[in-house]
């Protein structure tokens, strides 16, 4: 696949991407924190932003809706998800990486004004969400260093798909 005898090695279409435009567009954040920008945020600042820009859709404490429930701390006594069809899945009990919060909120939230928050604001609501999910203390500071270090309770449950063809069983 890497060679194709029927084709020239290169067609020469397109133009080189400059370092600058790559830096501007390559906003993805990896679980190891690569991609996280400078800046930082706190739970306190996050509380204000959340109340002003998020609570109308996700509820005052993150559990009221009307849209996705964002807060559900992990509890040792809960039924495992495979036995509990109605169990709420949220950051505290289902998300495997904390970096995903920053990445997703910066891309897509608030739903009605995506891309409108500064990096510091995103760090702050991320901090608030982590705190509300009982994952960090009220005085924690969230930044490129601290965010990837947060161990998410659900991480240990994740397994990679091993389904295959053939005549079952149907895992």
């Amino acid at each position: 696949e890497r060679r194709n005898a029927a084709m020239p090695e290169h067609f020469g279409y397109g133009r080189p991407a400059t370092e600058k435009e790559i830096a501007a567009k390559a906003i993805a954040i990896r679980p190891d924190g690569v991609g996280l920008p400078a800046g930082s945020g706190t739970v306190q600042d996050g509380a204000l932003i959340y109340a002003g820009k998020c609570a109308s859709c996700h509820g005052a404490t993150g559990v009221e809706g009307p849209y996705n429930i964002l807060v559900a701390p992990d509890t040792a006594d809960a039924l495992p998800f495979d036995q509990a069809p109605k169990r709420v899945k949220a950051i505290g009990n289902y998300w495997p990486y904390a970096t995903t919060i920053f990445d997703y909120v910066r891309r897509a939230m608030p739903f009605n004004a995506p891309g409108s928050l500064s990096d510091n604001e995103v760090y702050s609501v991320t901090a608030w969400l982590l705190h509300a999910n009982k994952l960090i203390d009220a005085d924690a500071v969230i930044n490129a260093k601290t965010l990837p270090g947060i161990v998410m309770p659900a991480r240990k449950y994740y397994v990679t798909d091993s389904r295959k063809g053939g005549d079952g069983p149907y895992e």
Partner: protein
Amino acid sequence: VVLVESSFGKMVQTGIPEAAVDPTKQVGPLPGVLGTRSPFEHPQRKPSLTSSQTPLQDLYGMITPSDLHFERHHAGVPAIDPNSYELMIHGMVDKPTVFSLADLKRFPSVSRICFIECSGNFRKPDKENITPQDICGLTSQSEWTGVMLSTLFREVGVHPKASWFLAEGSDAAVMTRSIPVSKGWEDAMIVYAQNGEAIRPQQGYPARLLLPGWEGNTSVKWIRRIELSDGPFMTREETSKYTEPVKDGKIRQFSFTMDARSIITYPAYPAQLQKGWVEIRGLAWSGRGKIRQVEISTDAGKTWNAARLQEPVLDKAHTYFRYLWQWDGDTTAIMSRAIDETGYVQPSLEELIAARGIGTGYHLNPVTAWLIRRDGQVVYSPEKWK
């Protein structure tokens, strides 16, 4: 025949009127720039705030009309100017490159007919008056044309150690998925045409990723960026969503392949059956290759017989099946099950739950049964969800 504009020209009309009393006595609209639907036909998708389902029970054959292709997106359909559209490929590559739409169209192209299905394509309401559209209308099929991603990979010089790539859309969610590079070399495409014409905005205009046989969400629409990397990015759509609880409290990630599935689209709710010969019709498909066989039961699952498959049977494609049956007027249940070329047999919901637990989510592909009542009414036979 030389026809010039004249009194005759005045007859040019657009659109077809509702039926004339005797169409043989009234000259109809002359040729126009675009064809129209009959005013008697109103095929429609069924929209919710997050998706829109294809009316499978109203369709024939393997092509889904483009304006009836299902929709699923996370922040609406973006408005993209094809003249400013760009696709950037960078990361673990020799030559980070930006391609315009015109650039993409210049590369050697390929067309293929294949299905796209949302891995959340399963509804289990506990009621009888639901249609194939309601149950699994989040699958549709088009003829897609574009460039093989492998051609672009060669062009930019993907590093041998690159193992994953991020595909990023230019919608308002800037939606992203991590994809193994092996799929990129295998059969992934960047497609810009659908059923002969430019992709529709709802399906990714002006260009989308197409990963044949994989869950629809991975075929990132409105694609603007591909970043080659040595690991997955763990985006929201591959962690919070598009993962499913499985046995022993586990959560399954990167469940890409769509398992073989089928659905009887006729007779199905809301069809009304008459005694006598009935052609049972439906669709079968598999993300693992061709459909090898579809089996039909007309006695609620006791016995199964092979349906006829409509040629051409294509790789990872909706395959139309038909089965001739004489209905004697008794109450019964009819069902179909798909078998793909790997030998995978479409399971029952019971088998799926037994294997994965009752709390599982995406990738549910159970055999669907339709109940036929004495009076010919055909209704959905609700799954026992336990």
